[in-house]
């Protein structure tokens, strides 16, 4: 019965209900998209790192987990010392640079032969390998997004590169240039941000990691598998703060809209509240009716929000093919919880006010 009252009241002011539902929907989709984008991006990076095919990654002592922000403080010559260790098949120094021309992209500076040795080489869809200092390789996604083909010119990091080839995606970055060229452009000659290490026998990863650790104390030596499990939004410090702020903002939107909508609702329905009280409805009954209404609006908003998120992620995939939005069941549940929590919190004060109304005054309300 209270259900029917809740249902009818929700339908009573369709526009207000609709606005509340859309607000909760925006809240939910904001959370899902921000988290989904972050996770998608990280997973993308992780997958590409995995795709390189190395067993171990070596980074300087203070390096960030999130590759794109790493500096370049290691001398390339360290690579030769690692290569001399037993069971090491190949070592590839990589310089990492973030390019912001038309979107954020990670650019790898590589030494073609060592990178090929670690990764078993690129699959070339067009053109050929890096030869001249001005050559650049792009992956198929990047080429599609920018409409590039072999032989085109690509302006990158303030330099005009010649697109030598288009390669299959999945090997660390989407854009590759010569290590020496990138070192010159970024003013870090003979430096590498990380080394990819390949072992001669797959089972030797732990042993080789230990050896490198003895050779380079304080350096970050991570088996690639471990690295992948660490690549989550909550492990990346700056990203973590950003994601949390956006979630808080989304919850605040839900809270405020529900608060305002319920506040006007209880004023408008003052007489109805007086009627319920004259029938002997307890404070708890009135609070339950109003929170029930909120829960209904939140539920509809959550469904809307999930649909909006999937819609937006499909649209984004069309517009920005290199972006991945990862909407996971776990985060759908969390977004639901947040939306319901923020909604009920927003409705609590109005519901409490309603339950305390004086019945005689409420019945006299025009």
């Amino acid at each position, binding site marked *: *019965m209270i259900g029917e*009252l809740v249902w*009818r009241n929700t339908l*009573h002011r369709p526009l207000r209900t609709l606005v509340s539902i859309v607000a909760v929907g925006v809240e939910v989709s904001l959370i899902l998209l921000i988290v989904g984008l972050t996770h998608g991006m990280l997973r993308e990076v992780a997958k590409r790192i995995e795709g390189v095919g190395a067993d171990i990654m070596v980074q300087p002592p203070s390096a960030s987990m999130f590759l794109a922000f790493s500096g370049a403080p290691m001398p390339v010559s360290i690579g030769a010392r690692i290569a001399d260790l037993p069971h090491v098949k190949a070592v590839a120094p990589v310089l990492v640079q973030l390019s912001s021309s038309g979107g954020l992209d990670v650019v790898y500076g590589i030494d073609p032969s060592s990178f090929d040795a670690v990764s078993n080489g690129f699959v070339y869809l067009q053109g050929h390998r890096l030869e001249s200092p001005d050559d650049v390789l792009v992956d198929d996604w990047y080429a599609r997004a920018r409409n590039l083909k072999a032989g085109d010119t690509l302006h990158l990091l303030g330099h005009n590169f010649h697109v030598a080839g288009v390669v299959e995606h999945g090997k660390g970055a989407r854009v590759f240039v010569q290590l020496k060229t990138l070192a010159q452009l970024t003013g870090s000659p003979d430096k590498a941000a990380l080394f990819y290490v390949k072992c001669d026998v797959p089972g030797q990863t732990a042993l080789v990691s230990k050896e490198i650790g003895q050779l380079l104390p304080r350096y970050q030596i991570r088996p690639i598998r471990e690295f992948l499990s660490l690549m989550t939004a909550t492990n990346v410090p700056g990203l973590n703060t950003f994601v949390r702020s956006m979630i808080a903002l989304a919850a605040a939107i839900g809270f405020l809209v529900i608060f305002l909508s319920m506040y006007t609702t209880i004023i408008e329905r003052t007489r109805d509240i007086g009627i*319920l*009280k*004259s*029938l002997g409805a*307890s404070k708890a009954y009135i609070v339950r009716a109003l929170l029930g209404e909120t829960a209904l609006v939140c539920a509809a908003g959550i469904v809307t929000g999930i649909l909006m998120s999937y819609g937006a992620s499909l649209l984004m995939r069309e517009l920005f093919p290199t972006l991945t939005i990862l909407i996971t069941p776990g985060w759908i549940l969390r977004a639901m919880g947040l939306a319901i929590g923020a909604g009920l919190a927003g409705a609590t004060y109005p519901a409490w006010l309603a339950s305390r109304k004086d019945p005689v005054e409420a019945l006299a309300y025009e």
Partner: protein
Amino acid sequence: MNREAWSAVAETAKIAVEDPRSLVPGAPDLEPIVKTEDLWKVYRSGALDVPALRGVAMEVLPGEFVAIMGPSGCGKSTLLHVIGGLAQATRGRVLLDGNDLSEMTDAGRTKLRRHKVGFVFQRFNLLPTLDARGNIAIAQHIHGDGFDPHRFDVVTHMLGLAGRLRHRPAELSGGEQQRVAIARAIINEPKILLADEPTGNLDTKNSESVLHMLRQLNQQLGQTTILITHNPEAAAFAHRVLHMRDGQIVDSIPAD
């Protein structure tokens, strides 16, 4: 009953001016269901004290149908609100079925109201978003015993609402709305029905039908009723009429 029998009842009623007990057939020793003692209600508006009730003492016996008449502003509604536990008295006592309202908390009075009181108002006060059925059923729901289809059918048939249950208040005539309100008020078999000018917004025909129903409920179900009215013809439906003036009961005479 034939004509003689009716006039005999009327005679008895006229004789029994002093003791309302004699009006309830076969129950001379009943405890009053409502009893007020030196009941005061003072409204404070700004620096001014407005006494709406000034020492009301009255009794209503189970099964009685009592009308309260008096000029506008004399405190009739206030008295009904205090008796029904919607408002609290400033001083004095209200005993409702043996419970002293003045000593109860707000939650206690709410519970008492839920179980023992039915209100009918001049302006119907139906919930606009629910249909007639919903308006009646919600009283059962609040009461807590759930929906009782048998009681529901008896009451709605008695009030001639069977065909109108799917309509919302805005789609019902005033008379129909008030009948829905009466059904809602009595659906939980309250000890007492409090009606505050229930015909005040109705035309003559609907007024009469509402009053007939109140009397029928009183006679057939033994529903104790207090009816506030401006209208002497309405008061004539009651066993007894109380006159109020300036927050006090000035006399108590049986209706003729």
